């Protein structure tokens, strides 16, 4: 099936995110609005106005009642999905680069930027999923990243840990209740920032993407690297598909950063790898610039990518995708049936 092109943004995409049911896609870009789309036909569901700076990040709670967004205007905002109403604004001293709800939507974390006089932090806000409730002004936790600023962060299973990826390529595990740093491992190449972190459905493991041209599958409990996917371009994003054991990597270098003269300079393709075998199995073209963000439909029907070119492309997997299996996978399936 041909991809659906969502052309509602005027600037580079920063994050795309599916809701739990996979029927809505939320997108943010360097322009100042958040868009929501129906994933099956690409029709716009709504927009959310209020930010006065580039929007870096968006997340939707597990009941699809609220979304949270983080922006270069130094705020996190909470919105009602249905009405587009801004329910709450929290202000910070610096830009907010990442937000994520925990598994039951009762907590929201935000990653704040490091700037002269301000350390990078990870803040936790308690959320009441009742749209009529008064949201608390107070942060319930602040983690200061004094070694290397956090670039991305998320909540593990049981909201037990906060896992963060850092500018120096390392990954940290924090106790989500106390904020204590439990582990910090140099997992990606030194000083190659971790630029994305996405969870498996049960949040026991996650995938990271880094400028070091690799994505890694890591266990949340002990930060053990289970798999490594090697690409030929700096990565911006990595997602796991559901129902099939694949991962999708997005990256590419912007024209101004390309110093080589090879024919296929940009490498603006979504790359599919087998999650368990770490082998590349296919590429999907389409964008005219680097892929800044990729997301997989949690119901397994497709994926979306957001590009530096200002477009979101929504792909619905076809039969060939679902039929594709390795011999050893068929063997295993037959044995179990």
């Amino acid at each position, binding site marked *: 099936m041909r991809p659906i092109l969502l052309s509602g943004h005027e600037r580079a995409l920063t994050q795309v995110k599916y809701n*739990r049911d996979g029927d809505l896609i939320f997108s943010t870009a360097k322009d100042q609005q958040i868009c929501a789309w129906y994933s099956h036909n690409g029709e716009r569901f709504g927009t959310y106005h209020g930010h006065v700076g580039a929007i870096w990040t968006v997340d939707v709670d*597990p*009941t699809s*009642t609220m979304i949270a967004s983080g922006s270069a205007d130094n705020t996190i905002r909470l919105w009602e999905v249905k009405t587009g109403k801004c329910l709450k604004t929290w202000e910070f001293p610096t830009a907010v680069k990442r937000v994520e709800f925990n*598994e*039951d*939507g009762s907590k929201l974390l935000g990653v704040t930027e490091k700037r002269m006089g301000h350390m990078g932090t990870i803040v936790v806000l308690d959320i009441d*999923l*009742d749209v009529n409730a008064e949201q608390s002004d107070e942060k319930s936790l602040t983690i200061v990243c004094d070694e290397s600023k956090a670039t991305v962060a998320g909540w593990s*299973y*049981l909201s037990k840990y906060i896992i963060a990826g850092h500018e120096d390529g390392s990954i940290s595990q924090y106790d989500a209740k106390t904020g204590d740093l439990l582990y910090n491992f140099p997992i990606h190449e030194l000083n190659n920032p971790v630029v994305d972190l996405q969870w498996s459905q*049960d949040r*026991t*493991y996650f995938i990271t993407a880094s400028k070091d041209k690799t994505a890694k599958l890591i*266990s949340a*409990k002990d930060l053990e690297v*289970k798999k490594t996917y090697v690409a030929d371009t700096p990565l911006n994003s990595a997602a796991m598909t559901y129902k099939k054991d694949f991962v999708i990597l997005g990256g590419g270098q912007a024209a101004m950063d390309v110093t080589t003269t090879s024919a296929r300079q940009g490498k603006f393709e979504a790359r599919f790898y087998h999650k*368990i*075998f770490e082998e590349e199995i296919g590429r999907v073209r389409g964008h005219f610039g680097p892929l800044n963000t990729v997301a997989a439909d949690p119901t397994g029907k497709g994926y979306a990518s957001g590009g530096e070119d200002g477009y979101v492309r929504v792909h619905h997997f076809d039969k060939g995708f679902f039929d594709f299996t*390795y*011999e*050893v*996978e068929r*063997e*295993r399936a037959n044995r179990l049936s």
Partner: protein
Amino acid sequence: EDAERINSADVAVVEHRRRLLEEWYAWRAVTEEELAEEREALGLPEDPVAELLKAHAAAVAPDEEEKVIE
């Protein structure tokens, strides 16, 4: 002889994949079991979101159940 060599290389690749698959599913089984135990110990529902959605639906449309028409 060449064919034999290629054949044994293929066998090695398949063996390797088979091992990766076994290792992966063994790790998943252990991890999922640990998670289920931890959830139970904390008195949490097996699927936190399913419970949440149920509560949410009840709050949005509290009289939903009464609307069932036989």
